[in-house]
């Protein structure tokens, strides 16, 4: 007496078909990038442009390689990543606390609604002068800018996610004897996860932008600086291929996080559970 669900039996086949489709999409993407690089090279070499301001992609490649070999660019990259991880980490913890309070206390929610509508559209960079006056120049200020870019999008999305939880799921959790904290962690967060994750994706791109921007305004903090500072410094010495190399690294990190890290998380959660926002 078993119903056979065709989707279940053919699951592996479907996955196989998907992966070959993904492969074709990947080739299209790579082809596009290679095409852009060739056009760039041709324009830089044969077009009427200054090779100082618009160096050929091959020159940029060599500059990038040299900078990797000497470890200079990696040092800056690691510093940037270090700052962003601290910022995002603190941001997520704060968001969690604020969101839980928001869901529990109605008056707090009303106040926070106003705060969100003020802070959410505000670019972190715009706050930098004030932050600098309060905490001074340095890593602290950059981290605060990152936190500001993380909290609001994640919070707005998390609240939407929590509000969309079916009442059945919450009642079920209470019914099987969960404590309130366990209910939040084991029922509400997984239910709201697709929304929370969408917020995290926005938070990542916003904070990455804010970080690079803040580093450029700031310069180095102490002895080390991030990628933004690296670009700023290279421009100062008119080492334009190095400036482009720095930009390439920023783009590369963006692509890796979007296409590899985020896609993998998505595949292991939302896609596997079959839920969409």
């Amino acid at each position, binding site marked *: 007496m078993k*119903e056979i*669900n065709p989707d*279940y039996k053919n699951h592996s086949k479907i996955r196989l078909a998907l992966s070959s489709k993904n492969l074709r999409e990947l080739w299209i993407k790579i082809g596009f990038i290679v095409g852009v690089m060739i056009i760039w090279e041709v324009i830089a070499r044969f077009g009427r442009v200054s090779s100082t301001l618009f160096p050929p992609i091959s020159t940029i490649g060599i500059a990038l390689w040299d900078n990797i070999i000497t470890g200079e660019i990696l040092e800056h990259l690691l510093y940037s990543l270090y700052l962003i991880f601290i910022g995002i980490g603190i941001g997520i913890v704060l968001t969690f606390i604020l969101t839980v309070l928001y869901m529990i206390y109605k008056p707090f929610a009303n106040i926070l609604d106003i705060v969100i509508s003020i802070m959410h559209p505000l670019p972190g960079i715009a706050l930098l002068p004030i932050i600098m006056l309060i905490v001074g120049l340095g890593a602290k200020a950059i981290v605060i800018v990152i936190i500001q870019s993380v909290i609001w999008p994640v919070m707005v999305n998390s609240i939407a996610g929590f509000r969309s939880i079916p009442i059945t799921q919450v009642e079920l959790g209470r*019914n*099987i*004897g969960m404590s309130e904290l366990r209910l939040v962690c084991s029922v509400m967060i*997984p239910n709201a996860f697709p929304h929370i994750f969408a917020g995290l994706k926005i938070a990542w791109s916003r904070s990455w932008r804010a970080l690079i921007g803040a580093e450029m305004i700031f310069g180095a903090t102490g002895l080390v600086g991030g990628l933004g500072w690296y670009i700023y410094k290279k421009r100062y010495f008119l080492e334009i291929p190095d400036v482009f190399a720095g930009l390439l690294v920023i783009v590369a990190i963006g692509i890796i996080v979007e296409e590899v890290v985020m896609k993998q998380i998505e595949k292991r*959660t939302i896609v596997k*559970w*079959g839920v969409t926002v």
Partner: protein
Amino acid sequence: MRKVLEVEGLNKSFRMNKKNIHVLNNISLSLIKRDFLTVLGPSGCGKSTLIRCICCFEKIDGGVIKVDGMLVTRPGPDRLMVFQEFNQLFHWKTVWENIIYPLNLNHRNKTKKEREEIASKFLEMVNLKDFKNAYPRQLSGGMCQRVAIARALAIGPKILLMDEPFGALDAQTRSILQKELMDIWNKTDITIIFITHNIQESILLGNKIMVLSRIPAAIKVLVDNTIPFPRMPETPEFMDLWKELYSTLDVKRF
């Protein structure tokens, strides 16, 4: 016989559009071990509200609810609900994890092996052994309801409350699940309250059948169903009971 469930003078009203709507009017009933109570009543009469009150999902306005002689005021695993909705499973857990997770929460004194044995037993009872590692999205509606039933039974409640669990299923799957539920009921000594608006289903399953009136709902009739198993809808006694229930149900004729 000791009473598993006692409801005395249960009253419940809702506030809707600034008006008080009296839904349950002085409901009293008691069930003993292995009772299978089916509840019939016109649409919107408060059938679901009744078992939601027993589950303590709703605050009651008056009356007492006792399980094994103890007053209950909060939801708990001694009264487990099987909902009508298919989304009552945790979609981020497999069938197996859905069953074993509440077991781990509620039976900490048992060893891991014992808990796994219980989970396998009930998974087998609902015929889903082959779908152990499937995710809810890969299951049909009927299978989801089976997992929900297995999960509830595995925890070992005193009372199983079923809110039209087969209401959203096709007729064929529904009759298969009715039979499976009867088998399970025969194998365990659980007390069940089963909401339905299908008269035939109520006679097939219940050893007690209750009909509620329109709101404010009171108990119209509470009959003992003594038709021997296997119950066939074609037999005269079945048809007589059907007619009796139909007339008390106050269905408007075309």
